[in-house]
């Protein structure tokens, strides 16, 4: 049982380590799905890939900024 729990933890941990990144990634995909659906068969649909790229890189930067600030505050006792 302990081994199965460890295996599950390992598989879950493969994909989710930080909730903000995991949920943000899924939301970015949903946003892009809506965007490409609304764009229909037009040229605009083909920009959805770049929009996804921008959303994910913004998510990464925001997440790292928050994490860095939190870690620094914890270490220096400012939180």
């Amino acid at each position, binding site marked *: 049982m302990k081994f199965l729990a460890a295996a599950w933890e390992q598989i879950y941990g493969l994909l989710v380590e930080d909730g903000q990144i995991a949920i943000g990634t899924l939301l970015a995909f949903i946003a892009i799905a809506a965007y490409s659906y609304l764009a229909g068969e037009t040229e605009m649909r083909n920009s*959805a890939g770049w929009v996804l790229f921008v959303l994910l890189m913004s998510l990464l930067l925001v997440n790292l900024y928050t994490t*860095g600030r939190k870690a620094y505050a914890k270490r220096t006792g400012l939180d």
Partner: protein
Amino acid sequence: MSGAVLTLAIAAVPAFVASVVEWVEAFTIVLAVGNTRGWRSPIWGTLAALASLAVIVGVFGTPLIVFHDQVSQSFHIVVGILLLLFGMRWLRKAILRFAGIIAIHDEELIYQREVAELRAAGQANTRWDNIGFWFSYKAVLLEGLEVAFIVIALGAQGGPELQAAVIGAVAAFVVTLALGAMLHKPLTIVPENFMKFVVGAMLTTFGIFWGAEGMLVKWPLDATSLLIILAGVCLTSLVAVRMLAAIAPQGVRVAARNI
């Protein structure tokens, strides 16, 4: 770029680099078991774990190839999301380590911790050592599960890609084993964080590319767009490291599990 070279670049290279990172972690534990309790049981534990992993890749990988054409579009989306979740996780961790926010993964420290734990468990009274077998089996299987996931995700585009990903993972195992047998100590010489960054950046790139393709998006330069996305991911990472260095110039080096 010819088709074969592209397949190799897309599936085998990231599978190789990611697998080296995982096999090095498994090797540290197997080495600790072998050096404290003898080599017979950990060798069998490793072989049993490898057999289990081969079954996992066969069971999950085969249907993906067989039914690939029928579920191609939704499949691209699923693979894209999985690669992104995995890739962004490694990318984030590597950036935090580069910036000194979390401590660098230390194989030597892990080795010493495992040795202490195994010594505390006492020596086996018989030739067959259950503790040694299960310790090695668990380490290789759990680290190998990550390898299996990467192989299946990268190989999900078709037969040649799965073959290339498997070759990459097996080559990584052979290289790690050869290096470990030669040095007979934890493989601290492997630049674990840099490799994690490379894999994170590559998987994030493929995830964006395939995920968007799954939503019927056509990339303007086809596969060449991959290089542009990869450059963008690397540039963002550089900006992120600089940003974190400005927040905490001396670094804070907390343990990864505390972040």
